[in-house]
């Protein structure tokens, strides 16, 4: 590092301090997270503005593509006459029940298959074979068996939730560090204690990953279930919008699906970071 005097006259100093730079940057602008948030918002806001403008000035036919404000208006209207809460409520009820049953069945069978070699040979090939069937193909059969009411919908959603949870439970338990299990054996823990004190917590990360992808699939299946015969629910709004040529209703339903899907995933994500705070890779 040779700095010859006189040559770089304009240079103030021969060294640079990261600390000083950071400080001056902090003084100059807003905190960095606000900056990235602002950056991320530019595109969506621009699209919304263009969309709103295009419909206001009649560039697009309003009865094909309603303005964002019209969509918000539709939601607002449903909130005031109370139908919004019924539709959202019944959809939430279906997904939660389906999620619950799917998870319960997957956790029970997955744990059994992962722990016992016999159970694996007995059940796993069948489960894998059923998994190969696109789950929506079951719909007609479920409707035949359970009718058009709630049971067929909940069963379909549970089926969608089942597979990702099952796969993650089995994978999670089977990949528990053998060395940790050995510590338990060295302390003379019983098989049951080893499961409770080592295998369960060690497979938690994988289980929670399974829950999140299971929930994602659950939302897909709730749409399918409600499209195929329902008189209430957000999916029914999609059908209603189509039948009454009301795109604002369809868009409102899409927005609400997105909102609920994101919210439920957010809740699971919060649970995940809280439960797995000990993990080395979860950002804090």
């Amino acid at each position, binding site marked *: 590092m040779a700095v010859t005097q006189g040559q770089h006259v304009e240079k103030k100093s021969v060294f640079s301090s990261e600390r000083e730079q950071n400080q001056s940057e902090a003084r100059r602008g807003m905190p960095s997270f606000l900056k990235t948030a602002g950056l991320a918002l530019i595109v969506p806001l621009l699209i919304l503005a263009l969309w709103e403008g295009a419909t206001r000035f009649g560039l697009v036919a309003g009865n094909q593509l309603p303005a964002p404000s019209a969509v918000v208006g539709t939601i607002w209207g449903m909130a005031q006459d109370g139908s919004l809460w019924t539709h959202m409520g019944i959809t939430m009820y279906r997904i939660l029940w389906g999620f619950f049953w799917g998870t319960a069945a997957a956790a029970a069978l997955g744990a059994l298959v992962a722990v016992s070699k016999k159970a694996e040979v007995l059940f796993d090939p069948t489960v894998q074979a059923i998994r190969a069937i696109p789950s929506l193909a079951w719909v007609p059969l479920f409707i035949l068996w359970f009718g058009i009411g709630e049971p067929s919908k909940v069963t379909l959603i549970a089926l969608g939730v089942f597979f990702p949870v099952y796969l993650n439970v089995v994978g999670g338990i089977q990949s528990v560090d053998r060395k940790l299990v050995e*510590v338990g054996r*060295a302390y003379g823990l019983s098989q049951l204690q080893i499961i409770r004190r080592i295998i369960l917590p*060690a497979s938690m990360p994988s289980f929670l990953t399974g829950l999140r992808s299971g929930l994602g699939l659950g939302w897909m299946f709730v749409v399918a279930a409600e499209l195929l015969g329902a008189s209430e629910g957000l999916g029914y709004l999609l059908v209603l919008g189509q039948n009454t040529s009301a795109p604002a209703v369809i868009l409102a339903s899409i927005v609400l699906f997105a909102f609920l899907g994101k919210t439920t995933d957010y809740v699971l994500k919060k649970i995940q970071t809280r439960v797995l705070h000990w993990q080395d890779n979860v950002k804090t």
Partner: protein
Amino acid sequence: MSIQVEAVSRRFEGTTAVENVSFYVEEGEIVGLLGTSGCGKSTLLRAVAGLDTGYEGTIRLHGQEKRGTSKELGIIFQEPRLMPWLTVLDNVTFGLDGPKEEQKKKALDLLEVVGLKDFADHYPKQLSGGMAQRTAIARALVTQPSTLLLDEPFSALDAFTKLQLQDMVLDLWNQYLPTMVMVTHDIDEALALCDRIIILKGQPGVLHDNLKLTQPKPRRKSDPELARVKEYILESLDITKAEKEA
């Protein structure tokens, strides 16, 4: 006699790890298993610990033949093997039974000894390698096992911590005279701590020598007697030299 290993061999699909090894460990003795890498020290220790039951031969604990783990044995592995979801304190109490308060007190006392009292609430991801190993040592000691099995417990530690923990082990040994079997490939460590050194050699590992050290502990590192023993061990581990003699 506390531990008897009689004609133990262990084969893994084709390869033999140890062949026909016999030795015994008296009550309250510190015995070192010394040998080059891959000669079956860990394999032998796992057999004694009962974690591996696929060996041939007999292993007796207090005169009784056993296959499988026992609560009387405490084990310190080559790696820390801490439960990542438990705090340092909960890791230390992992093998303890009894009232929570008592467990906590015992664990904190030991954490003080290994110098980690201030880290009781930390998680393993927040520890350095040496700190993690010290936690594992505390976990093994907290149950006050009558026999301690150690598999290169200090090999991952820096020189200072290593000496410090060796002193700690000696202190502990003075307090309640546990029987110890310690795998190591550090000759100085074996010389500082052991009453007897069992030298394994070759692949498959066979028992090469069984040295008895009578110097009282703690021993001075500069002891000329020890220097002679060290030279002897180095010579007997030196394969080229042994071959020339043969």
